[in-house]
């Protein structure tokens, strides 16, 4: 043993290998390899998902081509399939939900992080995390039994009389439709925005606040002009998380949206989303083309999420260049 050690000392080649062995003993390399494998698994999983969707939607892709994206018919009996009403419904409900959820979520998180006493903040944050874990079918039931009747008897008529001049709030109000879907989605994603944004706001160093206060700004000015810009990236992140959930949500949406594949300007009108139609029709889809079209819808949803996430990243990069925090 001792001889071997002396030889080792004398010959310095293979330093990389030796370094590797050394670090392996220390655990560094093991951790490196293991984490690399797990990170690569994500990549593998995503690419396999796309591959499966791509291969299994071949029949529908070759038959309809790009027309699939803007055909408005969905007819399983006569074999005509188009994704337009579903893409439209998915985008509209997601936008409506964000329009409602972002101001609410932001206000809530600012209060909890900046203004509320820590005890109150912690207990409310606990409840919010609880909300984020509620299964979506529960939100769907909430939608059917509470939001839908309120929309039909109270909220809908009020919106109609106040904003009825806009095409968005015209037409027949069934209680189910884009707006109801958006509202239920908003209720579901608000906890995500509040929870993540609050955490991010809490990580803003207190020196930042103190500096702003020392310069003579009010509490609100320090929050709005210093703390929020500092935490902007994280807050945006929470919103994108919410967007992703809104795009992919199935159960709660299908229970309140009316499930009618039509494109209508009115938010009162019934619609349909991609995730909902897949969940509704996949089990009973018998024809090969039918199945293939449903899988292509899945591919479309994946690409939509991909593109929206990409745009979101660009938005972050752009706003960071505009100034703000490091």
């Amino acid at each position, binding site marked *: 043993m001792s001889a071997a050690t002396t030889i080792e000392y004398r010959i310095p080649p293979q330093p990389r290998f030796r370094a590797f062995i050394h670090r392996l003993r220390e655990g560094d390399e093991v951790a490196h390899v293991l984490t690399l494998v797990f990170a690569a698994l994500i990549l593998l999983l995503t690419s396999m998902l796309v591959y499966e969707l791509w291969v299994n939607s071949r029949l529908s892709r070759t038959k309809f081509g790009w027309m699939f994206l803007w055909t408005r018919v969905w007819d399983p009996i006569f074999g005509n399939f188009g994704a337009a009403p579903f893409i439209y419904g998915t985008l509209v409900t997601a936008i409506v939900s964000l329009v409602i959820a972002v101001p609410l979520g932001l206000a809530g998180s600012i209060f909890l992080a900046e203004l509320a006493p820590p005890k109150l903040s912690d207990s409310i944050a606990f409840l919010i995390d609880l909300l984020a874990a509620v299964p979506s079918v529960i939100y769907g039931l909430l939608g*059917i039994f509470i939001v839908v009747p309120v929309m039909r008897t109270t909220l809908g008529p009020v919106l109609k009389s106040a904003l009825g001049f806009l095409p968005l709030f015209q037409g027949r109000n069934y209680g189910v439709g884009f707006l109801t879907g958006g509202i239920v989605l908003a209720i579901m994603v608000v906890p995500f925005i509040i929870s993540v944004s609050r955490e991010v706001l809490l990580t803003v160093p207190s020196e930042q606040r103190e500096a702003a206060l020392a310069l003579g700004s009010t509490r609100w000015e320090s929050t709005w002009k210093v703390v929020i810009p500092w935490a902007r990236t994280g807050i945006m992140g929470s919103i994108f998380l919410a967007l992703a959930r809104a795009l992919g949500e199935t159960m709660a949406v*299908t229970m309140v949206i009316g*499930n*009618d594949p039509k494109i209508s300007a009115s938010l009162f009108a019934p619609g349909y989303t991609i995730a909902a139609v897949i969940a509704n*029709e996949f089990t009973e889809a018998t024809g090969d083309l039918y199945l293939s079209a449903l899988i292509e819808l899945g591919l479309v949803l994946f690409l939509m999420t991909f593109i929206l996430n990409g745009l979101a990243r660009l938005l972050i990069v752009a706003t960071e260049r505009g100034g703000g925090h490091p």
Partner: protein
Amino acid sequence: MKKTPLLASLLLCLTATVGAQSNGTVLLNAAGATFPYPIYSKWFDVYHTEHPNAQINYQSIGSGGGIRQLLAGTVDFGASDGPMTDEQLSQAKFKILHFPTVLGAVVPTYNVQGAAGDLNFTQKALAGIYMGQITKWNDPEIAKPNPGVKLPGDDIVVVHRSDGSGTSYIWTDFLSKASADWKSKVGMGTSVNWPVGLGGKGNEGVSGLVKQTPNSIGYIELIYAVQNNIPYGKVQNVSGKFVKADLAGVTSAAAAAVKEIPDDFRVSITNAPGAGSYPISSFTWLLIPAQIQDAAKRNAIKDFVKWMLTEGQNYNEGLSYARLPKPVLVKEMKAISLIQ
């Protein structure tokens, strides 16, 4: 420490199944229709207690899924609310036999102010409403067979199933027979391109929407309506009589259709003749391969079908399913020998 009982029971389960299998237990896998799931799970459960060496594991994943899994060979037999089409049968690498198990019916349910009693619906009225051609409740086609009922002049809100289902299959099969227009423009299937209306998920989704939405109409399974005390209307049959669906009327429709039942049992019994026949009903089928290599499995399946046609039928009424008529049972008994 907390985890120990769970782990122990898991291990127990494992050894139990392994032990059972080595004792010659036959484990059959089946998948398919959701509509007959309550009676199927009852049957499989009772059958297993009476025949401890046969166990049937049924996944109610939907008729389409059942057919797909059967074609892929991942299950021993399938179940479907609609008979397989010629195209699907030609895709199969093996011959598939249809065995009717129970009867189900679909009923119209509605929410109309002022219409307390049972509304009478002509076939033309139902087809017109679902085509979007009849849009008001006081349309003469609806009003005429309902003298004395003051129907409102409001728009009809049409509700249909959003998920693919055997219920929609029976409903659209009936509408296709009621209206040539429906047949050529919409057609029949587990999901169709609905000309009008809102979609509700499942029987509970449709009945929920109808209950909540004034002036609406929808369709649900008879057993769902009976079990939940949901009022439903009468439908005119081919003899011109307005029939309120009940188990006897459904069985009578099947009995009336039996004279024309083909040897492969693939038959629609909507609009069956006979004064008492309810026009919107259907068989639901087990799909069994004609050739089964494994002798133990083959015998178990044959034995189960025999049991289902005799003793099994006694459980039907308790779960609000209609019995198969005698001639069908006799014919099916003979067909069991086709499983080889």
